């Protein structure tokens, strides 16, 4: 692995993780994070869409007229999302039924367009694919962690398998919306503290990119 690819991996998973630094793209998936399986499928879908659409857009970048850039981006992203939808409907009908409208919502996931704009625009297709994939993985890591907490405390299970003793009283709030917001906040807090601590120990070097508090883009 080249050092550039390594850097991208590190950036997208940690220092510039789409969720805890930019809180991008949580809309489409947060609603299904009370269940690990649905979260896994949704986040894999997001990662694949980001990777492939970044790659495609990067390959096409010299051909796209400026005026219709946004439209073309949306078109490419929708294309991949529809492909995922079709695949789910044909091969995993159960899952497709459960996720309902949330698959379509991947289109509006801000991460995908964000990576297409910020990275694919200026890089080669292969690298763009890698960037999209790793961004998706960073996103996946955070949401899976949240889903894990919610499923364990809310149902006493992991991937549907019971792990806590029968005497355990499930915390209903973990199944419901508020807990997702609290947990996202806690994850962000933890990540920023870790990063701040690291920045302190690494003092001397030119300061690491400080965590920007302003979200990048709507």
């Amino acid at each position, binding site marked *: 692995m080249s050092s550039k690819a390594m850097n991208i991996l590190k950036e997208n998973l940690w220092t510039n993780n789409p969720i805890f630094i930019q809180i991008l793209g949580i809309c489409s998936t947060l609603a*299904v994070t009370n*269940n690990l399986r649905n979260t896994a499928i949704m986040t894999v879908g997001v990662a694949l869409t980001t990777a492939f659409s970044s790659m495609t857009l990067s390959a096409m970048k010299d*051909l*796209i*007229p400026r005026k219709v850039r946004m439209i073309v981006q949306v078109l490419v992203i929708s294309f991949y999302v*529809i*492909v995922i939808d079709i695949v789910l*409907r044909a091969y995993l*009908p159960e899952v497709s039924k459960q996720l309902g409208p949330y698959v379509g919502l991947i289109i509006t996931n801000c991460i995908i367009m964000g990576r297409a704009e910020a990275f694919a625009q200026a890089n080669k297709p292969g690298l763009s694919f890698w960037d999209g994939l790793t961004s998706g993985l960073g996103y996946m890591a955070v949401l899976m962690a949240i889903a894990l907490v919610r499923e364990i405390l809310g149902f006493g299970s992991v991937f549907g398998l019971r792990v806590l003793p029968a005497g355990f009283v499930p915390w*209903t709030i973990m199944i419901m919306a508020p807990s997702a917001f609290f947990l996202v906040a806690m994850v962000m807090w933890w990540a920023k503290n870790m990063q701040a601590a690291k920045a302190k120990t690494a003092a001397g070097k030119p300061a690491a990119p400080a965590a920007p508090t302003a979200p990048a883009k709507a």
Partner: protein
Amino acid sequence: MKLKKDSIAYVVIFTFVVSALFVTLLALANEGTKPLVAANREFAAQSAVLDALGIPYANKDEALRLYKESVRPIEGSSPRAYRAAIDGREYLAVEQTGAGLWGAIVIVMATDEKVERIRGLQIIAQNETPGLGGRIEERWFLDQFRGERAGGGVRIAVGAESKGTGDADPDNGLIDGVTGASRTSVAFETIVNDALARARAVAGGAK
């Protein structure tokens, strides 16, 4: 060669070509999977009836065979109703649609011939919130209906009364609701009772 990327002709042609390309690809993918999706849908409908009737099957082919052998759709019934013989006893199954929290919930429910006990219940379609109301599709919830006394209708416990783990007593006409999804549970109760009324009508000879 340097294309004039911002000329109107180029923009129009480019947009057209790209759209056409992607749409064609999608159309191909859609056509290619159409039979599979249709088969999935048919299998889902038939397996729901089998599940409700409590007829076990190991795989898709066996399900299709068993369905052909033992289930007899009642002709002209709308929504659909079925009769089936299992181990020499007659059973009824009816489809029922009702309003859930967000949209329609479609169930198929099987009872014995005289509609005294529920034989089983399966969900064909629902749009409740995944992980909340959507949990009405889970086994522990649906299995509570198996063998439940249906004489006085069923009641679904919600809020503080619900244990969220299932009610094991088949004689009390009581079902444990899904925690955190009280309104879906209430809606579901109505649908099940409507289905029971319909089953009684069917048992009495209605279509």
